[in-house]
């Protein structure tokens, strides 16, 4: 049983409360964009809402969930309390103060620059300072994770770090690398501009630094889902993990290939040459490999479980799986949506085809499907799975958990399939309204309404999720219980040092980043790199 339950629950509740509010904003945004009349339908409100939705989902839900889940994993997988609960709480309060500051900035209407910033447009300084505090809080979490693993290795010389913890630390290290890009952009470019110390900004450089962060951050969000696939789902299905080594290898490959690929967000940008776009596209292709390995290993683990339960034949084992268990169901639904989201990702990655879909609704569909369909659905399943050991109470009935997961998956498909299609028709992104009277745009209307219906299902599911977790009166208290992660078919006695630590991988990341981003960043310091005048969103 984890020691610091209140710490973990505090993180998870911040994540989930913000998540429900952000889901409601998302539905309203789709309503505004649809042909139906919506309340408060002004561009100012719309972009304020998009900023709130993006910041909440991408920075708050994820960061707080990952920190809380990381503390849980450290205590349960290593079976020792955290090295410093005091530092962990300090990280929590720092990040929470940052959230409060950012939310206040967004509510003031002075920060509607979306969560991706777009300098030379600028918001009130408090927006950025708040986000910096969230990142600083997460850096404290990184330190606690690193110390926890180091202490375990010192106390257990030669013993393999449990896979769940190894993966969590891989994510923590990746996050340090990831945040370097956006931190440099905010500290050296945006803050000097918004505090009035500089009047111009190098936009090519700021876009490049942000791209450094923009893809790896997605894998930061995705890691907990993969940790659940490897270390929770096989046990929930009544089996074992097919291969512990492949798990370690996949997490290491994510650490390596999530970072030197961010320029695929800049394929259509004029400040980079084809050559570096090509290099980063090739590295992007490689990042699909750990996902394909994971699909295989987890499917094999599930097959073992299905056969143990009496499943026969080529597909009989699928039917024999205990689909009534939320973790198994969520894994199945996540894999289903991962095929669509991942397939779409391969299209985005191909830099020729990217011109067809860049900044269309196709891309919005892609990342909602990956984020909502694979990441968030596994956050739900993880919460259901660990709730009894955190609170001493089971979440509401398993039937309502299943209903909630199904609603989420159906809602996600109903919302994103029309978006994919509309994107191919050329529907562009980030607009508050469409002129449906235009005969070239009018036919999109019905499909936009269908996607809105999907959004409503998602909101219902989001509210159900929180209701399922809330404590209720007259609830049976469970006996104190710990949490065990899935065992491998062959639990490792010894693993190679490279798969029990990260030194060699950090060196490789540094080399890859030098190759992928060295010159692309250096070019802005050669010659007269153009400077654009800053444009305060609300006129300063």
């Amino acid at each position: 049983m984890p020691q610091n339950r209140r710490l973990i629950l505090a993180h998870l509740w911040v994540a989930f409360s913000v998540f429900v509010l952000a889901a409601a904003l998302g539905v309203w945004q789709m309503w505004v964009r649809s042909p139906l009349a919506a309340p408060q339908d002004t561009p100012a409100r719309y972009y304020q809402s998009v900023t709130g939705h993006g910041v909440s989902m991408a920075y708050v839900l994820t960061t707080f969930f990952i920190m809380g889940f990381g503390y849980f994993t450290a205590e349960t997988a290593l079976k020792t309390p955290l090295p410093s609960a005091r530092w962990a709480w300090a990280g929590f309060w720092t990040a929470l103060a940052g959230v409060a500051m950012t939310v206040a900035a967004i509510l003031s209407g002075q920060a509607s620059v979306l969560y991706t910033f777009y300098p030379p447009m600028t918001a009130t300084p408090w927006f950025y300072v708040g986000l910096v505090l969230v990142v600083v809080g997460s850096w404290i979490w990184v330190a606690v994770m690193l110390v926890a693993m180091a202490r375990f290795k010192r106390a257990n010389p030669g013993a393999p770090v449990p896979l769940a913890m190894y993966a969590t630390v891989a994510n923590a290290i990746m996050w340090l690398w990831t945040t370097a890009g956006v931190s440099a952009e905010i500290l050296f470019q945006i803050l000097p501009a918004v505090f009035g110390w500089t009047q111009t900004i190098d936009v090519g450089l700021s876009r490049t630094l942000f791209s450094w962060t923009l893809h790896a951050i997605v894998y930061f969000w995705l890691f907990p889902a993969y940790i659940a696939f490897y270390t929770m789902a096989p046990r929930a299905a009544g089996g074992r993990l097919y291969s512990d080594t492949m798990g370690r290898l996949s997490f290491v490959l994510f650490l390596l290939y999530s970072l030197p690929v961010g320029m695929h967000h800049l394929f259509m940008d004029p400040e980079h040459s084809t050559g570096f776009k090509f290099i980063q596209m090739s590295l992007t292709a490689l990042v699909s490999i750990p996902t394909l390995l994971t699909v295989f290993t987890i499917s094999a683990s599930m097959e073992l479980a299905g056969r143990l339960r009496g499943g026969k034949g080529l597909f009989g084992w699928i039917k024999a799986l205990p689909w009534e268990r939320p973790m198994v169901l969520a894994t199945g639904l996540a894999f289903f949506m991962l095929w669509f989201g991942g397939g779409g990702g391969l299209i985005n990655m191909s830099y020729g085809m990217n011109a067809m879909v860049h900044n269309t609704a196709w891309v919005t569909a892609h990342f909602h499907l990956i984020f909502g369909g694979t990441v968030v659905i596994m956050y739900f399943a993880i919460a259901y799975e660990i709730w009894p050991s955190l609170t001493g109470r089971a979440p509401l009935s398993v039937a309502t958990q299943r209903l909630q997961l199904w609603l989420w998956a159906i809602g996600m498909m109903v919302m994103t399939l029309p978006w994919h299609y509309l994107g191919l028709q050329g529907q562009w992104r980030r607009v508050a309204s469409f002129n449906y009277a235009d005969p070239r745009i009018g036919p999109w209307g019905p499909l936009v309404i269908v996607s809105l219906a999907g959004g409503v299902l998602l909101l219902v599911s989001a509210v159900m999720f929180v209701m399922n977790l809330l404590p209720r009166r007259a609830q049976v208290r469970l006996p104190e219980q710990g949490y065990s992660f899935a065992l491998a078919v062959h639990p490792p006695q010894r693993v190679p040092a490279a798969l029990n630590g990260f030194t060699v991988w950090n060196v490789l990341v540094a080399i890859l980043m030098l190759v992928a981003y060295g010159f692309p960043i250096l070019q802005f310091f050669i010659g007269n790199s153009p400077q654009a005048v800053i444009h305060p969103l609300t006129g300063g």
Partner: protein
Amino acid sequence: MSEADERAIVRSEIRWAVVAIAAVSVIMLAVIFAAIAMHINPPSNVERINPQDLHLSAEFTEANLGTKVEANGQITARIVATQFAFVPRCVVLPADRPVTLRFSSPDVIHGLLVSGTNVNTMVVPGYVSQVHTVLRKTGDLLMPCHEYCGLGHSEMSGTIRVVPSAQFRPGPDGRVACAAK
């Protein structure tokens, strides 16, 4: 489960890894073929320009905007993307002939696509974005700004008017403008 011999597990994983790597290689070969044989590459000319006096400098001054047939016969349209309009709002281009579109921004980041074509580029202040294409469909094509550029972003949209090649008649100065409809 104990009969699942560890070496068999490793062998199966390696077999799958080979399949995965082969699949990714096929995709990469297709991209490389399209890039080299069909010249399908992203717009990446890396051409710097000072955004602070864009409308005063040579190429993107007002008189120079719109479609022009150059002395060598090349057809180029120059367009400024600015909060919250494209200047000029409408550009005429001929169908079925190679054309070049050149964009730049004096203020913030913009972007655009031309509906029903593969024209798609970001417009970043400090750079000229250049796209080569052959337009196949005639008529008025939508050219919306697709990157958030401020509260008026939704209003920012232009028109590419594609006319049959025979009806594309430049004036003596090589220029063509949209006629009022």
